[in-house]
């Protein structure tokens, strides 16, 4: 019940752990999910490089992965963490399952941003002789930038809330504090403090995303 130095330090560590789990998982999820999202749009029927069979297989795989509840995916993927990171417990270990869960989500978020784009703009680029790569780099990505940034805020806050489950597998972060103190030791005060801190983090990320998106959008005035 007291805000002594030990508690404050624990919360500080919690914030840091939540932050880096989320940041690294988001980074890796985008490294995988962004190209997947591009492939989903580009290879679609009526896309700029239609490869319908690839599009279908990818779509099904993404849906499959997305339908596994995160808590279960977490336990399935931990052996992989052991191989890649060398441990299956603690905060770093959870980055692998988080990335696996978030990448297909990111692919869908990114896909929907690209689909908002006016087909006429792509047609114009094609009429100027743009190659598939040029359309992706010079039209698809920059023209969707505001929407991609909004999507990123959505994806990162989702990843942050998933990361809170690290507590179940010996990981750290604010979620772990809430679970360990609030649930196992019944210290609701600490639980509420960590929940409030999580809420604040979500707010900051969302607000940053909104502002960046608005600022980068040249369609407004």
């Amino acid at each position, binding site marked *: 019940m007291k805000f002594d130095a030990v508690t404050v330090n624990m919360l500080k560590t919690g914030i840091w752990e939540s932050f880096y789990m989320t940041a690294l998982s988001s980074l890796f999820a985008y490294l995988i999910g962004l190209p997947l999202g591009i492939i989903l749009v580009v290879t679609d029927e009526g896309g700029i490089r239609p490869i319908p069979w690839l599009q279908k297989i990818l779509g099904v795989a993404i849906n499959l992965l997305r339908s596994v509840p995160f808590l279960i995916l977490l336990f399935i993927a931990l052996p992989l963490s052991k191989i890649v990171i060398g441990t299956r417990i603690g905060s770093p270990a959870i980055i692998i399952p988080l990335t696996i869960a978030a990448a297909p989500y990111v692919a869908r978020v990114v896909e929907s941003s690209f689909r908002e784009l006016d087909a006429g703009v792509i047609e114009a680029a094609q009429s100027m002789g743009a190659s598939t790569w040029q359309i992706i780099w*010079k039209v698809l990505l920059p023209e969707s930038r505001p929407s991609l940034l909004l999507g990123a805020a959505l994806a990162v806050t989702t990843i942050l809330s998933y990361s809170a489950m690290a507590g179940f597998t010996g990981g750290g972060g604010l979620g772990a504090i809430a679970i360990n103190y609030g649930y196992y030791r019944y210290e609701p005060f600490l639980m509420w403090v960590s929940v409030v801190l999580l809420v604040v983090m979500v707010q900051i990320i969302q607000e940053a995303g909104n502002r960046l998106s608005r600022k980068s959008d040249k369609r407004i005035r």
Partner: protein
Amino acid sequence: METPIIRIQNLGKEFKTANGPVRALQNINLEVSAGEIFGIIGLSGAGKSTLVRCINYLEVPTEGDVLFEGKSMAAMSDHERRRTRQSMGMIFQQFNLLAQRNVIRNVCFPLELAGVPKKEARERAMELLKTVGLEDRAQAYPAQLSGGQKQRVAIARALATRPKVILCDEATSALDPNTTKQILELLKDINRKLGVTIIVITHEMAVIEAICDRVAIIDQSRIAEVGAVSEIFLNPRSAIGRKLIMGEAAAQAAGTAVSGESGRSIRIIFDGRESAEPVISNMVLACRAPVNIMYAATRDIQGKAMGQMVVQLPPDREGARRVIEYLESIRVPYEEVNGDEV
């Protein structure tokens, strides 16, 4: 005659849809000469957009071929087709500018795609913005421009790679009449000064009359007729041609037709030598018969004043016969307008 810059040969396009195949184009044969402004007109759904998209192979025809400067587009590799597209600029009804790029970077875009060094591209873009009268808006974003200004940027962008042909798909259909006039003037200017061949797709006869040398009328996925604009204006041979040319006259006339009177109507065409008023007043004097003017307009076709007028003949047979005889005697072209066209 030199080889046409674009020759469309037996071109056909069929779309496969969930409800079976849709024939958008059949047996299209056209030749466009270098330096001309060629119009393609037709009603909605006739296949105009499909045709223009087949010309630069954005849409791959299911039959036939397009020869650009004698080279078969069908036989080209993807890479060659992309290179060829750089010789064919395109402008659109909805402008299709890149919303996240400012004006100058939009104009630089095709140069960037073609690998032109940045500095050179900027200089060229500035030059083009001057041509279209927008050099002071170089740093603006498309959202800050009016429709007419956006289309000017699109024209500058289409000209950037020094194309030989510009394809315009309903380039003025989203603009008000005044702006339309300015944009058409600009296109005509570009055609004259740079010698760029322009292909204009439209559903408005007025656009064809304003700038085109020749026109093809497309109806239900086929070419109905092709010819010089002044010729087709004087003497449309196809049903669709008559409808398009007399369409506005008929629509206007319908509004002024005296109800209850079911007399015959004729369309009189003036080709610039005589002016409309003396013909009609002389006719009334000579025939001693009243005629009802239902519609009259003059317009400038390729610098020649052309006029058309729809008049209702006198209700009695004798009066009508006298009017027809008078027109024959002074050799003014006329034709009878069907009831359903009026």
